[in-house]
């Protein structure tokens, strides 16, 4: 058997799907040819790649989609797209209908104020600009909050990132970020939410929320990021929580070590 012939049979040989005669020829070739043997070993080695499990809420997302489809909502959406109503389709896909209406109202309001601003005399300009800015901030809040409620993890991630565009610290946004940090099924979303919460670290409610989040966390990555943040914030109230983690034998050893380091830093 030549190397070319062996290459054609490689996967069948490795999976033992060849007839006895061909299997014997292939085995003989593999014993003699170093390169081909190494290829076969590489095929076997790939089995050491661990299987990953989807997050538990994946089934719920599927059921929601199926129910929505069966209720005919998806059909309607497809029809809307076919008719070329790209804006309506975009609004439907990005936001839930009530939020879409709220957004539309906000946009209308911003447009109205802008119209008033440019058509009227210049008296009271500053006040009108301030009102417009405030409306824009509200609009951004709405967008960020609606994205944080999306089913798709990548859209929730975008929501977390979008929340940075809300310049003023906002209690609703910080509450939504804390909720994402504690309960989101995606580790990526939880880590991003934690990053954004740094902006709110002087807020006592956020500080308390972060302490609660540490108790709930199961992911070592998020636990370590939280411990680092407590050290950065010089949060002495965290010490008791860190001690519990350090003494809990069920917790990941790396996290326990980090908790010990955190206690030393905060003492």
């Amino acid at each position: 058997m030549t190397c070319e012939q062996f290459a054609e049979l490689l996967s069948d040989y490795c999976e033992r799907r060849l007839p006895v005669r061909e299997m014997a020829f292939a085995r003989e070739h593999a014993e003699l040819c170093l390169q081909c043997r190494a290829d076969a070993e590489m095929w076997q080695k790939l089995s050491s790649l661990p299987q990953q499990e989807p997050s538990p809420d994946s089934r719920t997302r599927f059921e929601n989609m199926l129910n929505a489809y069966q209720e005919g909502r998806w059909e309607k959406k497809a029809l809307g797209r076919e008719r070329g109503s790209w804006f309506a389709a975009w609004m439907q896909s990005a936001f839930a209908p009530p939020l879409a209406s709220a957004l539309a109202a906000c946009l209308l309001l911003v447009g109205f104020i802008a119209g008033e601003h440019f058509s009227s005399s210049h008296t009271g300009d500053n006040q009108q600009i301030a009102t417009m800015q405030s409306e824009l901030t509200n609009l951004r809040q709405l967008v960020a909050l609606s994205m944080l409620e999306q089913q798709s993890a990548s859209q929730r991630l975008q929501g977390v990132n979008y929340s940075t565009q809300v310049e003023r610290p906002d209690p609703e946004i910080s509450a939504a970020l804390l909720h994402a940090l504690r309960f989101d099924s995606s580790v990526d979303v939880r880590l991003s939410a934690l990053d954004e919460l740094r902006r709110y670290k002087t807020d006592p409610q956020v500080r308390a929320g972060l302490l609660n989040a540490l108790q709930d966390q199961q992911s070592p990555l998020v636990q370590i990021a939280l411990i680092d943040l407590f050290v950065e914030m010089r949060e002495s109230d965290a010490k008791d929580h860190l001690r519990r983690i350090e003494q809990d034998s069920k917790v990941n050893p790396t996290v326990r070590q980090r908790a010990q380091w955190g206690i030393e830093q905060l003492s």
Partner: protein
Amino acid sequence: MDAHRAMTKTNSLPDEELMLQVREGVGEMLAVLFDRYQSPLFNFYCRLTGDRTASEDLVQDVFFRILKYRQTYRPGTPFRAWMYQIARNARIDYGRKHPEAIAFEPEMSPSVVPTDSAEEAQQAALLRKALLMLPEEKREVLVLSRFQELKYEEIARMLDLEIGTVKVRIHRALRELRCIFEKLSSGPLAPPAAAEREKERLQ
């Protein structure tokens, strides 16, 4: 008892039979197919993209597309091959919408299933990295044949290639993967740093 028996019977139906029922409008049967294939599809995408978040979204997209295009399923066609064709298209569309996803950083992908030893964890980390460094078309054909248990004929039809070409491509992909893996194993990213990082990522 009857309900239990009916459920057992449904669960033992072949994919093709279930898909025909979905095609006829029995949406509940798609849930059985979802339970069978969400994990293989999720792993298919994880191995192709290295991105868990995107992979979860893509799995949902595949089942949405199955519903949407259910009328295009032809009786007698193997369901798995048809599903992976849809999965492939979904991934291509995702790549177009998210070009930044191509520049994915392998370190972001946490492994969920812990391995037995540091050595195994280290090997898995290097393998995953090597796989992601493989050119996309080679990675795809290798993943389809090695992990998704598709036949050569099915892969050939899916990629619009001759069966012989598929076999050669699988072999070339494997050899290139071996070169990358050997380079990584002897390079500066080899242990202990890689093993430590992998250990930290275990959940």
